């Protein structure tokens, strides 16, 4: 329940960041706007990767509920790897933007874009750390309390991060300014 509350609260956090981006997305030099720099095919692939990580997360939760430690660990690891792929893609995307001349402070569009997606990236990274910690302590049999529930809570967080990306992907990438 606490996790649900926390996620409810996060809605307002991301809402604020998304709104800031929406307000500022048009404020940039003509040659460095979202329409010029975004690489939709590339981002679509990484969005797809993140989406699939939700699937593997569900499978991990499901395995944990069936008390299948080995499969739980497997799916958790796969989820973490998919997440890492996504973050890696984001890092690549950021550096390629940077090479094109779009730095954090270049324009209001770039500041709000990097802030929004950066916050999301940090959330994914935190999620990966949580997943790896789960795998680690799971192996040592150290998860206190009900193991399946802990996995499920991490799962909720993970899905939430995915859901946020679903929104960001549509509003930020697909809808041109």
């Amino acid at each position, binding site marked *: 329940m606490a996790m649900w509350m926390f996620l409810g609260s996060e809605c307002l956090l991301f809402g604020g960041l998304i709104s*800031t981006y929406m307000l500022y997305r048009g404020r940039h030099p003509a040659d460095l706007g979202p329409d010029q720099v975004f690489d939709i095919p590339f981002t679509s692939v990484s969005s797809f990767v993140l989406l699939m990580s939700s699937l593997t997360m569900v499978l991990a939760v499901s395995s944990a509920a069936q008390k299948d430690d080995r499969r739980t660990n497997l799916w958790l690891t796969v989820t973490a790897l998919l997440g890492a792929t996504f973050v890696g893609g984001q890092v690549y995307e950021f550096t390629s933007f940077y090479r094109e001349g779009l730095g954090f402070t270049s324009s209001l569009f770039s500041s709000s874009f990097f802030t929004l997606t950066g916050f999301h990236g940090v959330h994914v990274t935190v999620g990966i750390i949580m997943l790896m910690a789960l795998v680690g302590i799971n192996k040592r049999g150290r998860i206190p309390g009900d193991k399946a529930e802990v996995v499920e809570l991490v799962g909720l967080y993970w899905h939430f991060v995915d859901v946020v990306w679903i929104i960001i992907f549509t509003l930020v990438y697909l809808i041109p300014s």
Partner: protein
Amino acid sequence: MAIIERPSTPALAGSGAPAVVTPSQAYGVLKRPVSTTGWRSWVFTVDHKKLGIMYGVVAMFFFLVGGVEALLIRLQLAGPEGTVLSAGLYNEMFTMHATTMVFLFVMPMGAAFANYFIPLQIGARDVAFPRINAFGFWCFLVGGIFLNTSWFLGGAADGGWFMYQPNANALFSPSHGVDFWGLGLQITGIASLTGAVNLITTILNMRAPGMTLMKMPIFTWMSLVTQFLLLFAMPVITVALFLLMFQREFGATFFDVSAGADPLLWQHLFWIFGHPEVYIIVLPGFGIASEVLPVFSRKPLFGYRFVVFSGAAIGFVGWGVWAHHMFASGLGPVSVAVFSMATMLIAIPTGVKIVNWVLTMWGGKIWFTTAMLFIVGMIAQFTIGGLSGVTHAVAPSDTQQTDTYYIIAHFHYTIFGGAVMALFAGFYYWWPKMFGKLLSERLGKWNFWLMMIGVNLTFGPMHIIGLQGQPRRMMNWTEARAGEGFFNLGFWNRVASFGSLLITIGVILFLVNVWNTHKKSSTTPKAPLDPWDARSLEWITASPPKEHNFDAIPTVHALDEFFHRKYEVDHDTGEVRKIASAEEVLAAEEAKADKHIHLPSPSYWPIILAVSLPIMGYGVIFNRLLIAVGGVILLLAMFGWALEPSVADDSDYDPPVDGGGTSKELANIG
């Protein structure tokens, strides 16, 4: 006398396992702290009562800090062309006065009461996440200290507590004050957010058997609404503060007009948080008022359901009115009209509360203790503050009043006259519960009258000063604009400054009262178990409560459970008969004492984790290396935290000292 007992794990609960034991083995990285006396028992505690008291003490300290700042402001304004403070210092002073009072006094004092009394009022042994609770407290403390160290490290924030952009960006506010402000609030914000998650979970999950939501004590109800507001408001200010930090520290341009930004973005984000914040401040006070009034009127709260629903309504509508802080900022007539109407709407549930309070007293048998006096004073003052609020909901008239002293009068009547007076009522009302001693009623009444008169002398004239056109946040006022008639600014400014002295004396009397009560702790008699003939659950336990709160978790049958155990009501005649004394009620409960009570164990990690945050904060401001240092501590602490079970393991405990005893007896041994 405190005991540390075995953890609550479902498999073992009630299995007849041993009770009192001492943890012997380290878990996690550091050895588990187990002191039950001395400073260690406080610093590493996870007991909601100890944390509540610490919240209270620290908040009281910041109240004095903020009070001194206020006095300096009033001293400066007592005469024309005041020279007590320089312009820069004056700006820092009013910025920090507001910041301190809002974030470091009223909010945490509400948290103090919520922490201490919510578990007691709902019949729980602790909160849902005791270590997170401790972490929250330490975040608040270190955040507050961090914020105030700015005074010694180049000057405090000088942009006003609302920190409007672009006046607060690095070009116009070059000292580090605003950085301290932003990071400090970010840290105390963590305290609010974790507290909110924790208390909401506690209230929804841990109520005693039989306590449906509509049988919950009203203070708990109002706190629940408050925590929901915090839960949803804190992330908004978090976003705003991050944008501010990125702008000041990393060269972003969110509020930089030359880059095409719109400074109103900050105002919206700030007030989307800021208006719910107003209700975060007053709702706990409403809760205390609604607890104290029935007790001393010897009548149930009039229209409990209406009070609950109006509280919830305030919580909802409070989200739709933020732009009434911005009527003069050029929103356009449609927005202004919409927000003007929404603001009027919120007057209705607030009015409902005042009506219910008056009707609670109506037909009662009113006993004027200090606590009751504070609440009666609070209702009167809040009425004035509420009505002046309606006058600014009228947007055109607000364009004449906003940013003048009239606004200051308004919100001090609601916050000081309302929320703070209620908090003082809470002190007098609950002191015997918390410490087993009564505060002196004689000194208390002096305290009340001085504060009551002081508040009205200080803030009453500000209505006049404001309507006479004196803007706020001005380091001085001049004779040329003061006028000469009855309403001249000079006279009323002096009155206001004089009033602030009376408030000061009142607060000092309170401190004297506390000192007297505890200095002679060996000689002053213990407070009676039920000094006020109270009505709610927190009184069905010892004073002060044992570490585990209740020997047996009471089963709840009615709103005002305690009252109904003491009195029998004849439904035909309406006659009320006493059937049991408080001692008898308590004895009956204790007879049913649980054999095994499980409490969470103290932990080092909350304070270590919290301390890493200001280190990172200093790092952001002064030296990026410190960020790394803080970050390492943070990671280690999180790691240690995650590895440490929130309650010590079975194997940590020695065999039972006394296999057959109940925990109550053991509690007395311990």
